[in-house]
């Protein structure tokens, strides 16, 4: 904690400086929007804001602190995830700069909304209180609903936004219902008290179960787990591609961070009950996601289904529920953030003046036109499929290891077979890029932001793949930090 806040006795403020800074920057962006004509500059200012916030966050590393009377926790876990959100937001903005120009929708609000959404996520990762959690969640969700519909003149974007909003509001309602039951049981909104109250009740207590089921349903919706996944392909396809990238990593990571807090702390006493539900959901999610992805010819939809299946894998970490499992969840989300943003960056680049560039055929022969982009995409896809020596392999390895360590052998077998299946559809893109002839539609936009984002993503993907040690250490610290300081 920075000395300054301690001396003036405002530790609580000090604990949320990165969030506050983002909020302030977001509001300033709205004002700058009126003054600055060239909207790309607002993007740069937003990046600056994220950078400053990251700096504050970095100064908080290693701090363990319970702020505001026990509603927000500052611990390695929340700092780790806040870092992921900031990285994801920065990379998303980097790939948006040119893209929004091409879509003719470059407005200052876009960047402000990303900052607000990120701020909401940061509260979600730190919240150990139902109310704080919910407010963080809604801050993120509302900003995201607007971002999905940001292409105002585009029908698909509007449709996606409305669908996402309706289903999202509905699921938030269910979540809220579960929260109210938990409050009824415990008389408190804090996770520790809830866990305490639940542990005094029998495992089969109907109200506890009801609370667990509704809570789980709401969360499964947020992470797009089967059978609550139907909104995902539509929302991902309709949203501006840069927003899809943001959603598929940041929003997903935030939802998982929230899930870890709720499932591994608040309703941990109900673990024997929810583990069964989660195992079933995990198997369904990865299988349905992978099988549905096979038939997609729209790349955005394909990656949407792939992101569904990845949510299924990550649930294994919860089912394992030990240190390895939580480390795996943290590590997987970190790796997935870089790899997936990289892949989405390539797809964002496919959008050019008159070409939408979402079809798998639009990538035909990409290797001949833009060899380096095609090779990068190949590596991102290998990483998504979990082939060494990419980061994705380390991520999958950790999840499978967690499953085997806790003797969930059947689950592990289903998961690895799914991982093998997933290679098939990722390689449909590879076939298109490397083994077809280029058409007149083949080509990429090039922009410094895109190049930088791809560069960062590829370096991290390969470095984690070849020398994962430091990253595993950080993820392990985060995973283990969920309970003690």
């Amino acid at each position, binding site marked *: 904690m920075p000395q300054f806040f301690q001396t003036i006795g405002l530790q609580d403020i000090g604990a949320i400086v990165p969030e506050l800074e983002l909020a302030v920057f977001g509001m300033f962006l709205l004002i700058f929007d009126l003054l600055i004509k060239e909207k790309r500059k607002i993007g740069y200012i937003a990046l600056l804001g994220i950078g400053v916030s990251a700096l504050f966050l970095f100064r908080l590393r290693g701090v363990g602190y319970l702020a505001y009377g026990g509603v927000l926790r500052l611990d390695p876990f929340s700092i780790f995830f806040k870092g992921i959100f900031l990285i994801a937001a920065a990379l998303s903005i980097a790939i948006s700069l040119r893209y929004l120009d091409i879509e003719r929708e470059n407005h200052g609000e876009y960047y402000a909304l990303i900052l607000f959404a990120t701020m909401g996520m940061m509260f979600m990762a730190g919240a150990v209180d139902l109310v704080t959690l919910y407010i963080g969640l809604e801050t993120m969700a509302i900003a995201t609903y607007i971002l999905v519909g940001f292409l105002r003149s585009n029908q698909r974007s509007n449709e996606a936004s409305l669908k996402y909003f309706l289903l999202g509001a509905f699921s938030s309602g269910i979540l809220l219902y579960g929260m109210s039951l938990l409050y009824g049981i415990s008389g408190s909104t804090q996770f520790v008290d809830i866990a305490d109250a639940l542990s005094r009740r029998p495992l089969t207590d109907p109200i506890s179960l009801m609370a667990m089921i509704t809570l789980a349903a709401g969360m499964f919706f947020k992470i797009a787990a089967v059978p609550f996944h139907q909104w995902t392909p539509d929302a991902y396809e309709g949203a501006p591609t840069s927003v899809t990238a943001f959603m598929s990593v940041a929003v997903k990571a935030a939802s998982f961070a929230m899930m870890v807090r709720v499932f591994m702390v608040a309703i941990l006493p109900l673990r024997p009950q929810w583990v069964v539900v989660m195992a079933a959901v995990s198997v369904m999610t990865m299988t349905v996601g992978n099988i549905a992805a096979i038939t997609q010819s729209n790349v955005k939809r394909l990656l949407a289904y792939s992101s569904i299946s990845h949510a299924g894998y990550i649930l294994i970490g919860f089912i394992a529920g030990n240190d390895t499992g939580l480390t795996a969840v943290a590590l997987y989300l970190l790796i997935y953030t870089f790899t997936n943003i990289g892949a989405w960056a390539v797809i964002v680049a496919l959008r050019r003046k008159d070409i939408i560039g979402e079809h798998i055929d639009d990538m035909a022969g990409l290797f001949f036109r833009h060899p380096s982009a095609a090779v990068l995409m190949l590596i991102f896809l290998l990483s998504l499929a979990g*082939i060494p020596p990419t980061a994705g392999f380390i991520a999958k390895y950790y999840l499978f*290891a967690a499953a085997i360590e806790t003797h969930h052998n059947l689950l592990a077998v289903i998961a690895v077979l799914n991982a093998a299946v997933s290679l098939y559809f990722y390689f449909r893109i590879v*076939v298109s890029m490397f083994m077809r002839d280029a058409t007149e539609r083949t080509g990429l936009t090039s922009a410094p932001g895109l190049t930088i984002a791809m560069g960062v993503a590829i370096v991290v993907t390969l470095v984690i793949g070849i020398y994962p040690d430091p990253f595993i250490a950080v993820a392990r610290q985060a995973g283990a930090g969920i309970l003690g300081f």
Partner: protein
Amino acid sequence: MDFYRQHILSIVAFWPLAGMFVLLLINKENKTLIRWWANLVVFSGFVVSLPLWFWFDRDSSDKMQFVEKFTWIQSIGADFHVGIDGITLLLILLTTFLGPLAVLSSWSAIENRTKEYYAFMLMLQTGMLGVFISLDFFMFYVFWEVMLVPMYFLIGVWGGPRRLYAAIKFFLYTLVGSVLLLLGILALYFIYPSIAAQHPDLAAQFGTTPTFNVLAFHAMAQYLPYNFQWWVFLAFFVGFAIKVPMFPFHTWLPDAHVEAPTAGSVILAGVLLKMGTYGFLRFSLPILPEGTKHFVPMMVALAIIAIVYGALVAMMQPDMKKLVAYSSVSHMGFVMLGMFALNPNGLNGSIIQQINHGISTGALFLIVGMIYERRHTREIAQFGGISNVMPVFAIVFLIMTMSSIGLPLLNGFIGEFAIVMGALQENLWWAVFAGSGIVLGAAYMLWLYQRTMLGKIENPANEKLLDLNFRELVTIVPLIIVAFWIGLYPAPFFAVLDKPVNKIVAKVRPDFFQGAPRLNAGNGDAR
């Protein structure tokens, strides 16, 4: 020199990869330079690996030599850990020996996207060598999977008409096997600490934390519970059997072979398939002895089916390359039969036969490739009387045919003889089936030779064929020399194999050297 000697395995393994990075700097239009460079890299790679043969200490050929060990991923206990014993010595030399021949054979066959082609060939070479030298299971797995990517591209980009189908089929089949293998590895990894905690000798030598050290697993084998071995054996079985490939997992092989470019087929048959048998030899047998014994009947049955079925299907093939591909299935059946006879003769034969198969089948694929480059067809019916126009080719083909069917004086005989001996020691019927496989093998190979090479030229398209040129001779003659070497004087090969093989036998059947009883297969005596 000291540095070289201490790090020879890393140097040998990463030599082609280093060469690949340099290759990437060459302008892709400069095809001649690319070809020269790639050939230079693999050939010098072979030269670099030669000292292994001379420096290898034959008196302790069952111990790991040239060992290097560094911490790699501390948090999960994975090391960079390499070393070779007599078995891997031969497999590594086979790899570095076949590599240059395969690369040289592509000189005129690969005209488009030359740079990527050679880059993938070099990457593949490193992947294969990495598999054979790894003594850390995690590292082994990384190499095992890494190799799939270049092979996929070799088939998928430079292959025949159905290349995309064949490439993805190859990739998916192998991947399914390898991910299950990974689960088996993880099971061993996690059971190790609990076993080390009970057995101080193990803990003293290899520590008590989870490890991927293959040597620790070898030492742990005797303490592993039977049930555990049973399951892990199955996981390993799927991984390795798909690679071998054993019946009924063989269906990817003919597709991959037929569609792959010649060099791809040579590497695939020559080295890649050996990774499956090597897996059984290095991991399944010594780490899971009880599981191995339990599954002997199944393994032998599958091996015999592969021998007979592969041979029968090969006989019916109208396409030369497909014929050779199915002959691979049959020959790999021999390898598996010898291995699961679980006695020194069988295992020795099995390993020698792996080398032989690399030599003979590799050569046969080169031969088919040579004729394909001239006629752009591999259909047997299109040929006949070729020996009239290509006499040198006819002799080469004849020698390799004889080597493949196991004619005495040539390499195939040594391996098959030892395998049949090993099988006979255990069960008369195993030997009978193996013998029938040899007869069938002779039938389809000789028939192929007769239909394509002998008689009069009937197809006018064959009248003007040119005989082998110098480059083609250079690719094939080394194989002929080695075939004769193994056939006439195999002692140097057995000299490095005896000890490691006896060690494996002693591990799987501790009673074997005390009176050599027949294997009571399948009774699960540790149950």
